[in-house]
């Protein structure tokens, strides 16, 4: 019965395979995602950014910009909440890269690498587990908005769909930050590069201010920025209950990001792993 005293099957009599099946890859990735969730449970302070940030940003932006942009706070909420939502959740996805880097520097990664598991599983698992963080941030933003007086006209179903869209797109963007996480030397440099990408993406968009108030050259960028399409899509869904062209453009943008960055990240990761 005892593990250590039962005889060990010899090295040559075992049945061995040199490749990993798709099924095993998926199972391994879910095991790694499960690890990600256990870690969150052990260190709940990791959730501060996805809980406090939506609260602070929503309240702050509502009262700073609310009066100036829409005349009064209540009429600013339908414009603001989708913007805040997208901005917060995307900011959250930066952490994916930072945590990946920290993780890869730890001794436990040596064990992952020495196990007969899919090479990609630690990476896929990390990204998978992070969708839970996006879900928390999404939920809190909507709830805070509701408390401040936001009443989305689209109805609960469309709000949920909007939330899912944001989660999917953030997951797609997190591949960019995962890429930085894999190639960077240290966790802090990941943070640095990531914010350099993140700020133009989120602030040079229509997230907080309608783009028609901006100078022409800026509008040009804002209008092709996939984040703008995502924000517009969320506004359409939550406020009007409609699925417009922006919805599909946002998904297309997400698909393009994944198509570019997933292979890049995986290749860089495999070279290191």
């Amino acid at each position, binding site marked *: 019965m005892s593990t*250590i005293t039962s005889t060990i*099957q010899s*090295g040559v009599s*075992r049945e061995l395979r040199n490749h990993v099946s798709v099924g095993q890859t998926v199972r391994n990735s879910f095991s790694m995602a499960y690890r990600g969730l256990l*870690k969150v449970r052990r260190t709940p302070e990791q959730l501060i950014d996805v809980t406090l940030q939506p609260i602070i940003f929503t309240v702050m932006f509502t009262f700073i910009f609310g009066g100036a942009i829409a005349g009064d706070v209540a009429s600013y909420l339908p414009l603001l909440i989708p913007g805040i939502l997208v901005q917060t959740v995307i900011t959250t996805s930066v952490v994916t890269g930072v945590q990946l880097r920290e993780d890869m520097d*730890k001794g*436990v990664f040596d064990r992952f690498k020495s196990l007969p598991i899919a090479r990609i599983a630690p990476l896929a698992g990390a990204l998978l587990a992070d969708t839970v963080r996006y879900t928390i941030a999404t939920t809190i933003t909507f709830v805070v908005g509701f408390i401040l007086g936001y009443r989305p006209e689209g109805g609960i179903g469309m709000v949920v769909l909007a939330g899912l869209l944001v989660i999917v797109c953030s997951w797609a963007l997190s591949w960019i930050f995962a890429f930085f996480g894999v190639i960077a030397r240290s966790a802090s440099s990941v943070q640095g590069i990531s914010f350099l990408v993140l700020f133009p993406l989120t602030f040079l968009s229509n997230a907080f201010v309608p783009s028609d108030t901006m100078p022409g050259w800026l509008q040009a960028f804002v209008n092709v920025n996939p984040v703008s399409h995502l924000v517009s899509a969320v506004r359409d869904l939550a406020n009007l209950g409609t699925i417009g062209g922006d919805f599909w453009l946002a998904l297309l943008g997400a698909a393009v990001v994944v198509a570019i960055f997933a292979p890049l990240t995986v290749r860089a990761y495999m070279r290191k792993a």
Partner: protein
Amino acid sequence: MATSSDWAVEATGLVKIFGDNRAVDGVDLRVRTGSVYGVLGPNGAGKTTVIRMLATLLRPDAGHATVFGHDVQHEAQIVRQLIGVTGQYASVDETLSATENLVLFSRLNGLGRAESRVKANELLEEFGLTAAAKRPLKNFSGGMRRRLDLAASLISQPPLIFLDEPTTGLDPRTRSQMWDTIRRLVSTGSTVLLTTQYLDEADQLADRIAVIDTGRVVAEGTADELKASVGKSSLQLRLLDPADRDDAVRAIRSVLGVDVTLSPEAARITAPMQDPDRITDLLVALREQNISLTELAVQKPTLDEVFLTLTGHGVENDSETRPDASETPRGRVNA
């Protein structure tokens, strides 16, 4: 011609270069299936790098290695099914509890949910960690961490286990527990490749030893062969009255038949010790001449001397990694 089942590890000409540092510079190793093989060397000798290459964690820059006949580069995934690796720095997840770690690694090893729980509990029991199973690893002692690490390496019951400095930094009691565990592992048919900085440890555990220095194997053989190449143990005497020195030296010459070395302060005499049985005769002779001793010690060859003999230079900054005095290979008796 040996078949692949005879050799758990066969490596030829392994090289790893970091920048312009040839960390491993042409290492050959052959580990017979079912044996314990010790890789002995000081800090920075390249032990960890060798293990990492054999365990598929690092790609060799040159050379070739197989594990049970499977190439570590081209059949890496097969090799990973045959090995367990306990790294020098704990390769377990610090943020999880002991149980969570073992369940996770069991799942990754392909065990089902329920099986993984059973396996985790079994291993916790086996390694005396049940009481601490739910606590986060932050509060674990070095010894507990090592045990958990080893437990995690045994989940798949691998026929080959790599142990990188399994006892460095452990207190004497935990160290001897670890030795017992390693011996039990071997009795189940596992092959063990371990690295160590202590000749004593290699001597206790390993069937064969490779001494490695600056990335090269400088000697290989059984512990006895190695020690024979370095010389015998020596006997050290400290006299109560330094004036007795000449009489004492004469007594040693006549009883043991060897020449002695005198320490500068003249009170300490060192003599090569070929036959421990004759020590009694010497002590009787000294008593008869009324020569009193303050100290009598047997000094086994130390790693330092092994290196001095084999490489012509000693072990650098040995003291910082060396465990406390009770573990130095020195049996000390006060006379």
